[in-house]
């Protein structure tokens, strides 16, 4: 065979090119389509509800994946920052996948349940009001648009979530009832960002928040990571920095970066409880305050121990003590 003639026969050459590019394609892309390792199913990972799915589509429409990843890598610092690393079965219902390629903003794979809904309502409306150095765009228009549900049933069918149109209608009605009820825990902040005409409707922002709250939630539930489990730091009962002005000053810096968004300037309260008081919601002893900051509390207080470490948690507690005093 004369291989020089390959360069004299364009059609043969094109066919040869297709064959050559097909080898790597077959091995790394086509064959894996059918391997169990690329399509693991776990009963623990539930499909999205109709509202979460619509929220996901808004996430896609707004291109959130251009700045936020949704895959935690198995690196020690990454697990400390975000939570457990991502597992393949977690993406089983994701069409398309939304792992992203750039973290201009933080990873969101474990954001579900980290903050109360109110945090997201306020943050999406004006991120800089909560974190002045943030470069996240504000998305005030999401609260001003009614969620379009005309295609929801069809989408759910195409995505194969395993429930029908009647179930979609039931879910939408139940969700609407939940977020519009006066007893909805984030009702106050929601009503601040939602125009009057849409107070009784599902807005695009409602759906987006529902989606964000779903991210990583199934995994957390399966692992039973209960917030505020006190046993891990039972020994932490007394603040080594009590009364140290240097520690209080450092604590103030930690507070501004991590706590101010929810608990307000100088701990005067926001949608997180007031801290400049001696009447703390979850107890006011050193041990109680340490447990609250380190391990989080139900209702939206995240755990800060993995990120801050014991030392800085105590410094933050020292600053809270100063706020108590200043407020007296």
């Amino acid at each position: 065979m004369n291989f020089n003639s390959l360069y004299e026969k364009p059609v043969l050459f094109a066919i040869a090119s297709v064959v050559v590019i097909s080898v790597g394609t077959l091995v790394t892309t086509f064959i894996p389509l059918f391997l169990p390792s690329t399509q693991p199913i776990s009963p623990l990972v539930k499909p999205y509800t109709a509202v979460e799915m619509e929220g996901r589509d808004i996430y896609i429409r707004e291109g959130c994946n251009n700045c936020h990843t949704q895959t935690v890598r198995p690196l020690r610092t990454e697990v400390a920052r975000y939570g457990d690393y991502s597992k393949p079965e977690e993406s089983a219902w994701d069409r398309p996948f939304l792992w992203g390629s750039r973290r201009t903003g933080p990873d969101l794979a474990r954001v579900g349940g980290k903050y109360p809904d109110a945090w997201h309502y306020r943050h999406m409306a004006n991120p800089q009001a909560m974190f002045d150095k943030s470069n996240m765009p504000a998305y005030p228009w999401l609260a001003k648009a009614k969620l379009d549900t005309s295609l929801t049933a069809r989408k759910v069918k195409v995505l194969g979530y395993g429930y029908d149109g009647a179930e979609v209608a039931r879910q939408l009605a139940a969700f609407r009832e939940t977020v519009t009820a006066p007893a909805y825990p984030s009702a106050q902040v929601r009503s601040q960002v939602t125009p009057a005409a849409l107070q009784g409707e599902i807005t695009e922002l409602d759906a987006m928040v529902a989606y964000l709250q779903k991210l990583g939630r199934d995994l957390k539930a399966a692992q039973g990571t209960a917030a505020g489990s006190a046993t891990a730091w039972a020994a932490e009962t007394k603040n080594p920095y009590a009364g140290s002005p240097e520690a209080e000053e450092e604590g103030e810096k930690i507070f501004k970066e991590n706590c101010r968004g929810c608990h307000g300037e100088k701990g005067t309260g926001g949608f997180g409880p007031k801290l400049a008081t001696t009447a703390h919601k979850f107890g006011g002893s050193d041990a109680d305050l340490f447990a609250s900051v380190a391990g989080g509390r139900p209702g939206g207080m995240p755990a800060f121990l993995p990120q801050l470490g014991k030392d800085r948690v105590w410094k933050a507690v020292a600053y809270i003590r100063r706020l108590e005093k200043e407020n007296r």
Partner: protein
Amino acid sequence: MTPRALAYLFFTLLLAGVFAGIIAYYFSRKRYERVEAPKHRMLADDDPLPDSTGSRREG
């Protein structure tokens, strides 16, 4: 060695062999002129189209 490791090794050697074969084939002295001809011809492609006795495609 596990069969899996052997398979990896075999595949790697196979690719290396094909690669060496391609190099040996095209770098052999007897093909030099034919393989290198186009690089000179392309420089003259602004010339008027060659006549029928020139370098017209055969067949």
